[in-house]
């Protein structure tokens, strides 16, 4: 019937009648000229080539070595053994023990850093006098090199005789704990959690600060109390940063090395040997190249499962 004229009584009136005036029009930009594009490809090449080599050469070699019986002490004897190394590595009780240690370590640190990180971030988001200084104190452990933090904890805090913790235990009349003999894995979990708690807190805090104040005000106007606001507004807002924290920490925690290397050397027995440390000891202590390579590939597979999810999250963010 009719081409309806737009009926918008509220539009700005006067001499500036603009029927088609959105404030910000999506710009119709292209990709530049051929010259620019060609140059751009050339500038990208070195980085891509380097990373490609860095990814493919060692990985290919690892795969190749993993199929050999190859010991550095007897390097003439390399021979093809198929999947023998994998069979050996995967059925080795040390592998199962270290896999378990790895999972316990990663799981516990994740749990501790997130469960403590959320309340800590919420606390730092409150009006606190001297917030910047508190923030600095909280973040500091993340900047301490792993060998230093491991040694401070091992010597100054957790030493069964002269450590601060032993003294505190005695104050309360309890027998001091010999951390690295009685509960060595837990000791390492504590150290690593201390290092990563700032990371989780900082990211959650950043996310909290990006939460729209008006959203919270709207919830308050709707009659939500502090707890409901947290559950229905804040927590959903934190879901994505929490996922990011979990994935990134997992990537790094799967290969915790220096802390173990410096404190326990994987012991006592295999109690603190994780997969990274097992592979290291197989390669550089027992010189079993084939076995270590097979183990390395197992680590790559585990990391890739995590990476798969992380890449998808980051990729989705890239669209925006």
């Amino acid at each position, binding site marked *: *019937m*009719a*081409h*309806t*004229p*737009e*009926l918008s*009584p509220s539009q*700005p*009136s*006067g*001499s*500036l*009648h*603009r*029927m*088609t*005036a*959105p*404030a*910000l*029009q*999506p*710009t*119709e*930009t*292209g*990709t*530049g*000229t*051929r*010259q620019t594009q060609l140059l751009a490809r050339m500038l990208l090449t070195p980085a891509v080539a380097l990373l490609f080599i860095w990814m493919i050469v060692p990985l290919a070699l690892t795969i190749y070595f993993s199929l050999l019986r190859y010991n550095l002490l007897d390097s003439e004897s390399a021979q093809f053994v198929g999947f023998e190394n994998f069979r050996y590595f995967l059925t080795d009780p040390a592998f199962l023990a270290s896999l378990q240690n790895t999972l316990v370590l990663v799981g516990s640190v994740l749990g501790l850093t997130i469960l403590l990180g959320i309340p800590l971030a919420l606390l730092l988001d409150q009006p606190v006098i001297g917030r910047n200084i508190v923030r600095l104190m909280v973040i500091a452990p993340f900047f301490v090199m792993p060998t230093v933090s491991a040694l401070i904890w091992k010597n100054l805090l957790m030493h069964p005789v002269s450590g601060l913790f032993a003294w505190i235990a005695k104050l309360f009349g309890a027998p001091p704990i010999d951390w690295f003999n009685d509960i060595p894995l837990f000791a390492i979990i504590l150290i690593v959690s201390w290092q990563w708690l700032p990371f989780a807190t900082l990211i959650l805090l950043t996310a909290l600060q990006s939460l729209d104040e008006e959203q919270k005000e709207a919830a308050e106007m709707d009659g939500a109390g502090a707890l409901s606001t947290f559950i229905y507004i804040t927590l959903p807002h934190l879901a994505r940063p929490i996922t990011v924290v979990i994935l990134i920490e997992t990537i790094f925690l799967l290969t915790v090395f220096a802390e173990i290397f410096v404190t326990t050397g994987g012991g006592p027995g295999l109690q603190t040997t994780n997969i990274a440390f097992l592979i290291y000891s197989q390669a550089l202590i027992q010189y079993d190249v084939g076995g270590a390579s097979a183990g390395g590939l197992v680590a790559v597979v585990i990391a890739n499962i995590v990476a798969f999810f992380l890449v998808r999250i980051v990729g989705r963010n890239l669209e925006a």
Partner: protein
Amino acid sequence: MGQITLQNVQKSFGPVHIIKGADLDISDGSFVVFVGPSGCGKTTLLRLIAGLEDVSGGNILIDGKNVVDVPPAKRGLSMVFQSYALYPHMSVRGNIAFGLKMAGLPKAEISRKVEAAAATLNLTPYLDRKPRELSGGQRQRVAIGRAIVREPKAFLFDEPLSNLDAALRVQMRLEVTRLQKQLGTTAIYVTHDQVEAMTMADKIVVLNGGKIEQYGTPLELYEKPANLFVAGFIGSPKMNFISGEVAGRHDAATIGVRPEHLKIARDGEGWPGNIMVAEHLGSDTFLYVDAGAIGPLTARHVGELDLSAGDRVLLSPDPGRLHRFDETGKSLRA
């Protein structure tokens, strides 16, 4: 000199055709406005002329020379961006001088030209400020200063006023027009605002879906729109379109009548209808009328009318100002 000719210019991004063959002749010293809705290709066409994008086909001639393979810097054009695109780390002086510096002009000459451009635009007191210390209007003037100082063959404006508030926009509109006339430099100006188009242009190019719908002076477009699209796009409030039996009586598929060409009466002849909304601006009165089978109509009356929502009115079109269109939307001329 600044005569620009487009010959069958085409642009596609992959399979998407943004510009479907544009032919245009822009004479030296004229002010041409590209207008059209979002996504019509007007900005792309401007960027093709600027050389910021490659054409997929066709030729662009500047003063008779084909420039499709000439990089932007060598085309002798200058551009004012929607976001102003000022260099945030340079002072106003540095911003205006940058192009001249790139061209390798001697220092004294650069300084003389920058001072002159700044004086023209009342920017002299701000020459040593950084862009972030300026107001929106001042930034806009710096962007213009950067364009004029190079004495280009033509200015390209990409929606330069859309980030300003309404009052400033009117003022800058006048200023840009005045400056262009004073310098006599060709200008191509992209906007989605048809008021800007009508007030500033010597000639308007109406673009839609990558095609040039019509090219003409503002009054030509207003009085003789080539088709339904131009008729509906130019003029505010929009032209009323009526199809069906009423149009048939005029031997057309659709007839169009502008709100200002509808006579408003309480009784007598005309299309009856009820007022849905009445806007009283003092200088004008806008009536949004439900005219039953004819459809909703907008009517404009110069001056005040004592009518309000719910009132019944009769609307009759000025017979000499009726526009007729065929089934394809093309204008029918007697």
